[in-house]
């Protein structure tokens, strides 16, 4: 399917100069690509961007259609007529306002918690000398390697045992720190020259003060990356809510949406409504993605380095 590097694409007979060996001498374009292969590459890219983006077009367009229109013309990007009925029913007929509120609350607290606590631990692991530091770092790496699904039932067990099940605490506390964040921050702090801290130390600043007013301000890029991946991860989090809470008052948006779709609320097909709810679940992360794209990309690659 994806054979972008198809060597045949580079040798059309019609071109005045074939793909002669010694391609470095060919033309002034770096890489020396022929027109046809440029075109072929372009065509592949356009095809795949349609494939990757059209589902979002379908999602948005159909959330704005009437029920019969969505059933009859699901492919069409243009609602005819435009109808906000789906959204109306999302807000009036479901607990959407509650879900949005819960999601926002949980996401903000978890993001702030992760950024602060992961930085603290990352700094200690990167800079402070104390017994057991190395073992702790190995433990952090080991924790990152534990597959999340294995923890569903165990997390429920511990929440149940401590009497925390079905509470905001259950939604928030277990995910308030994450090993990947600690790892990212540790890597970053190690890249900052020690001399800065030493100057502050000579001035008599305490450890926390150095961390808070000297090192942390320098860590802005890493902090933004961590904020963004925490926000995105928590906003989208689903399975944890399944094992942490059961009462509808505590549902976050993904949980409410899942409930809406799996039929326990008897919504039938009603696709404009469901797609409208899905749009609302997608928008916050989409906005942040557009603004902070390069931090998302950094985040994806930081995650990669841990392997």
């Amino acid at each position, binding site marked *: 399917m994806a054979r972008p590097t198809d060597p045949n694409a580079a040798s059309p007979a019609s071109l005045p100069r074939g793909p002669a060996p010694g391609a470095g001498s060919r033309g002034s374009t770096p890489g020396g690509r022929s027109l046809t292969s440029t075109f072929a590459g372009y065509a592949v890219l356009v095809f795949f961007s349609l494939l990757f983006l059209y589902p979002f077009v379908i999602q948005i367009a159909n959330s704005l259609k009437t029920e019969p229109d969505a059933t009859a013309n699901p492919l069409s990007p243009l609602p005819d007529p435009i109808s906000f009925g789906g959204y109306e029913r999302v807000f009036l007929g479901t607990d959407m306002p509650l879900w949005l509120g819960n999601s926002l609350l949980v996401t903000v607290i978890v993001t702030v918690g992760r950024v602060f606590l992961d930085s*603290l631990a990352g700094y200690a692991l990167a800079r402070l000398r104390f017994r057991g530091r190395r073992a702790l770092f190995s433990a952090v790496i080991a924790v990152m390697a534990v597959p999340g699904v294995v923890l569903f039932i165990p997390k429920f067990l511990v929440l149940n045992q401590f009497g925390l099940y079905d509470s905001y605490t259950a939604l928030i506390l277990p995910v308030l720190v994450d090993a990947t964040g600690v790892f990212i921050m540790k890597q970053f702090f190690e890249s900052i020259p020690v001399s800065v801290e030493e100057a502050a130390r000579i001035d008599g600043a305490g450890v926390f003060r150095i961390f808070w007013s000297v090192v942390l301000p320098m860590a802005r890029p890493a902090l933004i990356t961590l904020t963004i991946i925490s926000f995105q991860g928590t906003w989208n989090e689903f399975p944890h809510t399944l094992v942490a809470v059961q009462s509808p008052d505590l549902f976050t948006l993904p949980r409410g949406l899942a409930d809406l779709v799996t039929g326990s609320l008897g919504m039938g097909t009603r696709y404009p409504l469901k797609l409208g709810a899905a749009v609302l679940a997608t928008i916050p992360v*989409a906005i942040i993605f557009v603004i902070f794209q390069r931090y998302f990309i950094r985040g994806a690659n930081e995650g990669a380095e841990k392997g």
Partner: protein
Amino acid sequence: MPDTTTRAVRRRFRPTAATREAVAGWLFVAPVVTILGLFLLVPILMALWVSLTDWNGQGSPFLAGVPYVGLRNYTRLFTEDNLARQDFMTSIRNNFYYVVIVVPVQTVLALGLALIVNGTRLRGRTFFRTAFFFPSVTSSVAMSVVFLFIFANSGAANHLLALLGVDGPQWFADPRGVLHLLLGRIGLVDPEAPPAALTGGGPFGLSWWEWLSGPSVAMATIIMLVIWTTSGTFMLMFLAALQDIPVALEEASMIDGAGRWQRLRHVTLPVLRPTLFLVLTLGLIATWQVFDQVYVMSQGNPAKTTLTPAYLSYQTAFRDFEYGTGTAISFVLFLIIVILALVQRRVMHGRADRPRLRRPAWTRRS
């Protein structure tokens, strides 16, 4: 630490700088250590115990009345002929076919897209990168809802197929195995009346015919969704690695007269090998954990053909209240993932021992 603290206590009002640093160190890591310990380490230990019992969710699993069954929750998944084993083996089969398709396809797609995006000097390079990556950051639940609509009976996919003159299937209601359908298409066997040799028996309570089903049509939709969502992340990893290739290396190979294909084989791919290994490993680990999409789109249906071990363990514990069996399934899944990751590491390391940048034939000419 004991040494320094006692010394510090002795000089009570003047703790040494080293002591202060050590204390600060532990204070700094304390919240992370506490939370990870309480919600990761302790739960795993608790779950190990629960997997040895028949706890039904009532009260605490650590009270005296909870029946202890030893390793039975594990053995019944493998050796006893019962529904639990049947379901477990079915989920393993389903997830196996899922992994076998998703991992190679997403890896090749990610690599391919990264190569063209990287190679293109066209305008819009950032746009394409964004377009491919965006699905990766969205909510799995929301995207499952979108794909439910796309693959609905009169949904976008079937409308598109109708434009091409194809009568689309009822995706989510179709338990037929894709491999069965293919075998039927080439006339090897009749899916309606499979040969008795295959239906007669087979390992672990499923017949050979059932093992050979391939992913069901319903599972195919989840496969497409996941490939669509995750390829972008892996593309970024390849892209980052591609940008690390020194331009001099590429130019040298061009001057040496390497064609595009040769350059890919002998310059680019060897440099990408660590990334390739990483992408395959991450893919393998993630695909064995597929859960959200199954929960939202199919709940294991139709005919249990989208059941996966992760979903089965959830269902067994929280719907059937058999926490012991559910937990045992989790741990078996854990073991599968660990073993596969280790095997893959060994295989890839065996290969990586060879010199990474062999001088290919075309450079030896001169």
